[in-house]
């Protein structure tokens, strides 16, 4: 078994209004100096050793992310 982390982020050229809203809220709370916030998704998958990297890439590209608007990265965290 291994834990696999998939992070999905909006592509740089795609407007991220949620990230902008977070960035806009920070100064109102008294936090200054944060110039940009991008908001994405973080998935944690528990996978058997039989699941290879190629399969994980298919999972990320085919379901977890929409490649039209999102980039994804995969990290294996050994148990």
């Amino acid at each position, binding site marked *: 078994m291994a834990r696999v982390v998939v992070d999905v982020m*909006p592509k740089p*050229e*795609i*407007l991220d*209004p*949620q990230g902008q*809203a977070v960035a806009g809220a920070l100064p109102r709370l008294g936090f200054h100096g944060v110039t940009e916030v991008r908001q994405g998704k973080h998935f944690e998958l528990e996978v058997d050793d039989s699941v290879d990297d190629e399969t994980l890439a298919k999972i990320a590209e085919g*379901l*977890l992310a*929409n490649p*039209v*608007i999102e980039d994804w990265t995969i990290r294996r965290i050994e148990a």
Partner: protein
Amino acid sequence: MSPRIGVITFPGTLDDVDAARAVGYADAEPVALWHADADLKGVDAVIVPGGFSYGDYLRCGAIARFAPVMSSVVEAAGKGMPVLGICNGFQILCEAGLLPGALVRNEKLHFVCRDQWLRVENNTTAWSTRYDAGAEVLIPLKSGEGGYMADQATLDRLGGDGRVVFRYVGGNPNGSRNDIAGICSENGRVVGLMPHPEHAIDALTGPSDDGLGVFYSALDALVPSA
């Protein structure tokens, strides 16, 4: 015999009843289709209606795309069956790869619910022949993730090939690239749009009856004129 137009219901669909009502207004027979049933019941066209299929989990339309009925819809669309995606249905058709691009959170984050003017940019698709080219129509828009996004090459191709079917006029409500409200497939048989023509079929219950043309157009696509 009047054409039979299927209307899909997913868990979380809201506008299947209004879509079926609109089909009936256009003198076609609405046929209820169920997400878990791959059987299209021999319909001549399919409407994927609005709502929040599967609670919009993961992304709007991302789970609905894998419903058994969608495999049949994708296959039928490949053979030229007219398919209309409204709002969440548009999102589903994009996720399913029947239409290019994706719908993202509205630019200002607000859920937009208002009567919206649209311009008919292409009146040759299976779902828009009853309109005059350039006609302006008033149709309700109600969506939180209605911003149409695609890469520049795709936008150029859609624009150049006349595949933008409806465009917002009088201000862009959600940050859609190029003011795009609706697009079509290469062959013009599959159309997706964010506004809701099924809510504009009767002045008693909507801002206009401008949406009826969408459903009448499908009849023209199904019944070749003598």
